[in-house]
């Protein structure tokens, strides 16, 4: 999260576009900026299962990150029209999945679907004149585990929610490496550009550490609502 925020302010706000593709060293839940952590997450069960919980700066809902490819895209220039910006960035995913032979399509507002099932969700924020979009491409889904960690009001609703999500959400059944490579290709196809590999500079890393210390490693940040 700190790296994404650093990229937003140090690169996006300067007019650059950066795509970051990453995974998680262990499963994690992120909640949307405006969500209440206790309302959304079963914190005791997360602690028992060693699942970290962190608040994002992007909006949207709680996400259980496990078997997935996660990306963040920051851009200093982007369509003002929010729907157009989602379409443009989700095209990267659609074309990337297409490179793996998967027939995906953009499903407004901010999903990508295959055969009507959601395989990729997205959330955005606009700060400092720049855009940050977080997205996840599901490789596989363990709905039962997800609902054991997220709060659902009653057992009855939980069973229905699990059934609903199984019906509506699917993994793409590819490896992390295949998907990450395809996503890079999708970005080139969607934006008509070549990608330059970049590493964080010493200054970037210092800024990431500063952001992490000030925000994401603070319990008060994630528990502020």
């Amino acid at each position, binding site marked *: 999260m700190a790296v994404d925020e650093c990229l937003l302010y140090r690169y996006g706000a300067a007019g650059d576009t950066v795509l970051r593709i990453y995974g998680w060293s262990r499963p994690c839940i992120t909640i*949307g*900026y*405006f969500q209440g952590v206790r309302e959304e997450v079963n914190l005791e069960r997360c602690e028992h299962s060693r699942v970290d919980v962190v608040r994002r*700066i*992007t*909006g949207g809902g709680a996400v259980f990150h496990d078997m997935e490819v996660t990306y963040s895209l920051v851009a200093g220039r982007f369509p*003002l*029209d*929010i*729907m157009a910006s*989602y379409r443009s960035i989700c095209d990267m995913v659609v074309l990337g999945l297409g490179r793996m032979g998967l027939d995906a399509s953009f499903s407004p*507002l*901010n999903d990508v679907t295959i055969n009507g099932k959601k395989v990729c969700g997205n*959330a*955005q*924020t*606009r*700060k*400092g*004149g720049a855009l940050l979009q977080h997205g996840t491409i599901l490789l596989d889904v363990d709905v039962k585990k997800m609902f054991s960690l997220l709060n659902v009001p009653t057992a009855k609703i939980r069973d229905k929610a699990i059934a609903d999500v199984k019906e509506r959400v699917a993994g793409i059944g590819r490896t992390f490496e295949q998907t990450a490579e395809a996503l890079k290709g999708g970005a080139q196809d969607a934006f008509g550009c070549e990608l330059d590999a970049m590493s964080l500079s010493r200054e970037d890393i210092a800024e990431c550490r500063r952001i992490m210390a000030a925000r994401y490693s603070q319990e008060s940040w994630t528990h502020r609502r």
Partner: protein
Amino acid sequence: MGLSATENSFLKKMPKSALLARRYTEEHEWVDAIDDGIIVGITEFAQDQLGDVVSVELPEVGVSYRHNDAMAIIDSVKTSTDVYSPVDGRVTHVNENLLSQPELINKSPYQDGWIVKMVPENRAQLDSMLTQDQYDELVGSAEK
């Protein structure tokens, strides 16, 4: 939002051009002069772009911001976005109704959906904001 300029030292110092008509920023915010400073909100175009507003985070009264500092956050069903301070100035009031009724920004962006009231420090910043015609042009080019 009447102008009682004679009663207010801030307004006495204000150039008339900055007071007579609503001004706008390139970030799609509007600024009106009021008795003791300015009132700030987001435009009809901005609320339309955002779609249904679901939450608003407001600044604390008394805090000072520099021009273009992020001072509030609006979360909609589509995205979250910062609200930037249109001037160097201090927040004197926040619209607490937005905490329980964030939809006021959609329903009434220029009236009940106002976001903050501020006392500006730098009058020249108000004068350099977009006029109605300039803002209409900006929105017109954004919609093409």
